[in-house]
Structure formats: structure tokens, C-alpha cells
């Protein structure tokens, strides 16, 4: 969560970062292993915390 916020801040893009904990919402994305990161509705990673540079690459 914090890393995603850092990525947004460093890139200077306008984006809302939300932490989702509701299991129904999580499984509606098809995510079966957490943590996961979703960018604009697409799951980019599941089961691990991605590196800052990876996150920046997904939200550029």
C-alpha cells in the first residue's frame, strides 16, 4: 500500500490508491492469493509485494 503510494507520488500522476480487504471484492478480481495489486482494473501481481520500480512501470 505504502509502496504504491510512493510510486504514484514519485511519478507525479493523479491516482487514487485504495486498500481492499473485503474478500468478495478481492475474489471478484480473480485473486486467490494475497497480497495483490490492481491497476485500472487489471491485476498486476498476486502473492508478493512488488518492487517500487515494478509498480512505477505499471502505472506510467
Amino acid at each position: 500500500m505504502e509502496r504504491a503510494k510512493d510510486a504514484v507520488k514519485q511519478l507525479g500522476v493523479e491516482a487514487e490508491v485504495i486498500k481492499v480487504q473485503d474478500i468478495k471484492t478481492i475474489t471478484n478480481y480473480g485473486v486467490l492469493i494475497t497480497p495483490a495489486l490492481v491497476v485500472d482494473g487489471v491485476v498486476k501481481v498476486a502473492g508478493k509485494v512488488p518492487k517500487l520500480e515494478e509498480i512505477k512501470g505499471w502505472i506510467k
Partner: protein
Amino acid sequence: MQEKCLCEANEILIFSCAGSSNVGQIANQAAITLAQGGVGRYFCLAGIGGHVSGMIESTRAGKMLIAIDGCSVSCGKKTLEHAGFDIDEHLQVTELGVEKNHDLNFKPSDVRKVADHLSSQISKRRAAPSPRPPVG
């Protein structure tokens, strides 16, 4: 020192074909039996075929992938491979002597045979060198 597979049951992902034949349904029921027995996690093959990002990424996080197909057409294996995954353990139900037909009233004993076989294979792999590097 040789690296050992430390796969926990929830990192062992089980996919089954669930095809429209007795053996497809046996494959699916065996996957459910294994999951309910705590051997691994039952995962959604259709989600892989549909390129659902959450399913794909969740599968990437798995440490051991198991594919159970009903017959030699191997749709489950091919679906996973098409999405870029390497399968650690693959079984066709027909390999265990079950003849394919289109009677969906399969025998529970055939499900047990498939589940027992895979449970044994998975146990062996859990004591074997790690099939892939850890996630992260």
C-alpha cells in the same frame, strides 16, 4: 546443501479439465477431493483460459502446479501451457485404466484412485528438490 521443496499445501495449485465425459468429471471430482483433503488448493482452469488477470497472477504465485486431465486430449495441460505455465505434475485419468465414455455417472472408486495416485505423487515431490525458485 541441496534445496528442498518447502511447498505448503496452499502453494500447491490443482487444476482439472472438467470435460464433458466420465473421465473429465472424475478429474474434476478428484481435484475437489484433494483440495478438501488439504493436499492443495483447487484453482480455476477456466480463469486461466479466459486470461483473467487475477487468476493468472495468483497462479504465478504458486510453487507447484498440478494438472488433472480426463483423457489424452489434455485440455487442462494445454490451457496452462498456453498461458505460459510449466506444470509440475500432470495426470490423465485414462492412464489409470479408466475408459473414456460419455456417461457422467462416474464411479466414486475411480475418483478415489485418481486422488490417491496424485496425493502420493505430490508427497514425493514435496520431498524433492524445489521445482521453481521462491516467489519474491
